[in-house]
């Protein structure tokens, strides 16, 4: 066995790349031995320097440098090299292909006609990012921060103000490289401009924060789309931060991506316990903090805040819903994955365990919705109603469509202004005098967002009260999720 170091250059003649932990390579090993006798053959072996045999034409590639530099994706790969330049290659095992390639018409007698081969170790997802750093250098441009040898990594990140109060995952180059494999976008591309300090953020910078939040690479496209949604004039992230009200971005995910990422739409749909639901919105909030400079007590002036500012992402239960999905209501096709950002307080439970008719339940829900933000205020703020399976069934069983439900709610959510005018019932808060004598809708047209999520049992739904809506405040923003 001979060693050559770090070479991208292949020797002339035939070159095979193999590993012992591959059935096809084992099958092909007598062929390689035969070829070594009749042709100029060099075998690079990825996992065992004595495979297929301990010989001078078998070269150790356990550091995978030859495999990596030559883009080996499958083993066995057979390459023809002339004057140091690759001329052609074949992958896997096919009697016909190998005979044509080598010109040896009797090669592989008695072997199966075809075997597809195995994945090269150099493209193993757990190994490839390290190889890219070791051999390829790196295209990542973020400033490197070295922690002192006696510094605890997690404490070091707290000390630098990088966390939301919970521990974060150290964003090492290898982890960030792995995160970047979750998207087709280039690391250096600008994603958006992050309020409040209006710094440009690159795909790489988003990936760093996604690593810290605990995201997996496959979540990354959702992080990118969610970030784009909040960094729009319509969503108004700067205002959402700066307000003294207890609001932050809450996200709703629709479409096939929910299943692909094993997001939770059921028990605890608005709660904790599921990685994708918890880490994706957290990543967005970390970017607003770390890149945008939106620190609590800085530009973030919320008087009391709310726990969903750590990150709340709701995956709608579309399969269990008798109605159109939230994203369909917002103009997207059912098969399209989307994320919507909605500016909101945390969820507030509506209890109704007695209503069995749709009429009764609609009235009951409306009574709670009338108190959203304040029973004395109308039209200025949106709300999201998250209906549970048992509640939505009361309407579906009676044949109510979503349109019918909205229609009934609209009439139940009409308020006589005189009852909530400033000073009415001895309460100084209320609508200005100018509205006296009018009937007012609780929400602007389209201001009530309706989503379905929750576990199978429990006659509870939730309200997520919004903030100033329209051009003065924040409106929901939906983005399609693409790779």
């Amino acid at each position: 066995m001979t060693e050559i170091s770090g070479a991208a250059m292949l020797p002339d003649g035939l070159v095979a790349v193999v590993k012992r932990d591959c059935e096809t390579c084992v099958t092909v090993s007598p062929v390689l031995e035969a070829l070594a006798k009749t042709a100029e053959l060099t075998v690079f072996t990825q996992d065992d320097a004595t495979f297929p045999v301990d010989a001078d034409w078998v070269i150790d590639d356990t550091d995978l440098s030859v495999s990596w530099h030559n883009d080996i994706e499958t083993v066995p790969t057979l390459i023809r090299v002339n004057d140091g330049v690759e001329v052609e290659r074949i992958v896997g095992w096919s009697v016909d292909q190998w005979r044509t390639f080598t010109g040896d018409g009797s090669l592989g007698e008695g072997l199966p006609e075809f075997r597809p081969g195995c994945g090269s170790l150099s493209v193993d997802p757990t190994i490839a990012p390290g190889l890219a750093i070791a051999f390829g250098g790196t295209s990542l441009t973020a400033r490197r921060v070295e922690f002192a040898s006696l510094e605890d990594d997690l404490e070091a990140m707290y000390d630098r103000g990088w966390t939301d109060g919970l521990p974060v995952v150290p964003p090492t180059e290898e982890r960030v490289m792995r995160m970047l494999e979750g998207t087709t976008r280039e690391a250096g591309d600008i994603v958006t401009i992050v309020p409040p300090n209006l710094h440009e953020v690159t795909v790489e910078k988003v990936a760093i924060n996604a690593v810290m939040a605990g995201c997996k690479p496959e979540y990354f496209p959702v992080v990118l789309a969610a970030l784009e949604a909040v960094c729009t004039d319509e969503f108004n992230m700067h205002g959402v931060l700066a307000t003294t009200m207890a609001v932050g971005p809450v996200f709703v995910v629709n479409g096939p991506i929910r299943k692909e990422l094993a997001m939770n739409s059921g028990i605890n749909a608005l709660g904790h316990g599921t990685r994708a639901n918890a880490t994706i919105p957290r990543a967005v909030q970390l970017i607003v903090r770390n890149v945008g400079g939106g620190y609590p007590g800085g530009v973030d002036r919320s008087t009391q805040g709310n726990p969903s500012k750590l990150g709340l992402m709701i995956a709608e239960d579309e399969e269990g819903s008798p109605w159109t999905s939230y994203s369909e209501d917002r103009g997207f096709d059912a098969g399209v994955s989307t994320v919507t950002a909605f500016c909101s307080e945390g969820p507030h439970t509506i209890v109704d365990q007695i209503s069995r008719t749709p009429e009764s339940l609609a009235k009951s829900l409306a009574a709670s919705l009338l108190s959203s933000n304040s029973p004395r205020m109308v039209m200025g703020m949106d709300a999201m109603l998250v209906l549970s399976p048992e509640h939505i069934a009361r309407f579906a069983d009676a044949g109510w469509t979503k349109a019918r439900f909205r229609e009934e709610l609209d009439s139940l959510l009409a308020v006589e202004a005189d009852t909530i005018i400033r000073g009415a019932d001895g309460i100084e808060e209320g609508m200005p005098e100018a509205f006296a004598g009018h009937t007012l809708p609780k929400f602007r047209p389209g201001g009530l967002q309706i989503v379905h999520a929750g576990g199978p049992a429990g006659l509870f739904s939730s309200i997520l009260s919004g903030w100033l809506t329209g051009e003065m405040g924040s409106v929901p923003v939906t983005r399609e999720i693409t790779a």
Partner: protein
Amino acid sequence: MTTVLDPTSEAKPADREKTTRPESLAGLTVGLLDIKKPRGDVFLDHIEGRLTALGAKVNRYAKPTFAKPAPVDLRHEIAASCDAVIEALAD
């Protein structure tokens, strides 16, 4: 030693910034931490007099032994009750 990628806008230096120095010690509480080297108390008595003359309130603390880092509780107590701290490294 771990090397990580900076998650921020990089508008600020990567090194941790020092706490802003107070412009005056008048009215502030200054902790004096005796690390328990011999005659550290003599030195700190002198410093206490000087600080008090500047209008500072002085709290005195001592580590159980100079050979080990200050206990966590002591560090927390100092951090919670003082605006500034002087650690005497006299020998």
